[in-house]
């Protein structure tokens, strides 16, 4: 004969599950849920909304490595990589919008608009004016401008105050990176080893940018989204070494996953700007 088991009986693990779930939830919140997750992008089946898109990616073809082992963090200098990142960004935009039937013209060489200061809030208008003045703006449809941001190792937009706090808390070792490097936009390749790999997860490549959608004819801002993050995890361990010491295969791997991060970020920006509409 069996006896009913009370809910609080040791054989019933439910209360433990509650506390486990609550603990996990709290840890997730504390672990940085303020960081917007990198979602995959535009909905399948969306249709054209603007007729034509002029796509202007203001993105540097550079990568910066950050090494973390849980106790220390070291940041490297920016390295030119020759990945044709702007060209790739244009192709990605075109591929993402092909299914929706939106033709895309990518313009990769708008000079002088990338490194505007933080106070410069009119960067998108400056790009639009420059395109219009040089007769390169297709007056149909809309213009998307992406301006790359400087990121920290977690893929968050670089914040000097937070960085200062991190210095005090974990005894960060600043390596070859200068303050100038930290403020300059580039891909961030965060190599996690040791305790950091267990705590912070796999090594990852991140890219971040602000995106604006403008009316091609008037220059009016139709949509804006800040701090879009494109991030990809490396499925394999990356050795803890400097960029010049990377083998051709390792550089190829970095290129593959950083370009995938770029695709993810562009898709996310397009999703948030609502470039397509539902059928």
């Amino acid at each position, binding site marked *: 004969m069996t006896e009913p088991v009370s809910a609080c009986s040791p054989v019933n693990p439910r209360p433990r599950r509650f506390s486990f*779930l*609550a603990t996990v939830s709290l840890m997730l919140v504390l*672990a940085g849920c303020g960081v917007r997750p990198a979602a995959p992008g535009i909905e399948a089946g969306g249709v054209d909304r603007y007729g034509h898109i002029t796509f202007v990616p203001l993105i540097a073809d550079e990568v910066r490595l950050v090494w973390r082992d849980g106790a220390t963090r070291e940041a490297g200098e920016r390295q030119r990589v020759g990945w044709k990142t702007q060209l790739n960004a244009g192709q990605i935009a075109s591929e993402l919008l092909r299914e929706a039937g939106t033709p895309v013209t990518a313009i990769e060489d708008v000079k002088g608009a990338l490194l505007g200061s933080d106070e410069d809030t009119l960067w998108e208008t400056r790009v639009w004016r420059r395109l219009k003045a040089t007769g390169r703006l297709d007056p149909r449809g809309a213009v998307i401008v992406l301006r790359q941001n400087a990121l920290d190792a977690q893929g968050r937009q670089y914040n000097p105050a937070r960085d200062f706090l991190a210095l005090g808390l974990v005894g960060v070792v600043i390596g070859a990176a200068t303050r100038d490097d930290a403020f300059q936009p580039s891909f961030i390749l965060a190599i996690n080893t040791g305790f950091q790999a267990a705590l912070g*997860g796999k090594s990852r490549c991140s890219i971040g940018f602000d995106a604006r959608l403008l009316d091609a004819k008037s220059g009016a801002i139709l949509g804006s989204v800040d701090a879009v993050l494109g991030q990809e995890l490396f499925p394999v361990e990356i050795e803890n070494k400097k960029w010049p010491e990377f083998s051709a295969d390792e550089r190829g791997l970095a290129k593959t996953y950083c370009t995938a991060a770029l695709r993810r970020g562009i898709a996310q920006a397009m999703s948030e700007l609502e470039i397509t509409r539902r059928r």
Partner: protein
Amino acid sequence: MNSIRNGLLSVGLLLLGACAGVDGDVIVAVPAYQAQTGASQLSAAPPMAIKLGAFRRQLGTGELPGRIGERKTIGNISLGLVSVNPAPGKLVQNAFLAEIKAAGHRIDNSSAASLEGKIYRFALRTPVTALYWDVLLDAEISVLVKNGSARRTGRYSAVCTERTYAWPGEDIIARVINGCLAEMTGKFRNDRASVRLLAGKS
């Protein structure tokens, strides 16, 4: 008690969704495909040597070879992207390899009879309701059969779903993938014209 548990679970899932980011991404290790045992046009053909080529999948700029889709939860919230290992091209090739061998034939890279293919779709979604997830794979391949100068292309597709009231986990995803591989290879095994061409009876 159940309602409290479900409530907490929902909040947990929503938090997981909101915080997942790339750390919610998953790489599903798909177990080796098991060939079907039923009789088919392929198993009825006399033993033959077949050259098995690659199954190619066209990738866009920055698309990862193994990536097949995304898991979502209520509110269209992403739980992260899903990749498979091996990548779809290799999975399909391995399934054809297993089926050819199980049907009593052998692989010979110098054979005049060959097959190779393309992957048009291999897309995973997880439509969700308040009660359950459907793990859904929509796949389509084409197989080019050649024997000397004769050639034939067949297209085979499958949409496979498994419903879960708990969690769209890796084991379910792997089962759905292998189910679709079985369905597509099953259509090929019973494609009389393709099998006849392989056997040199075009």
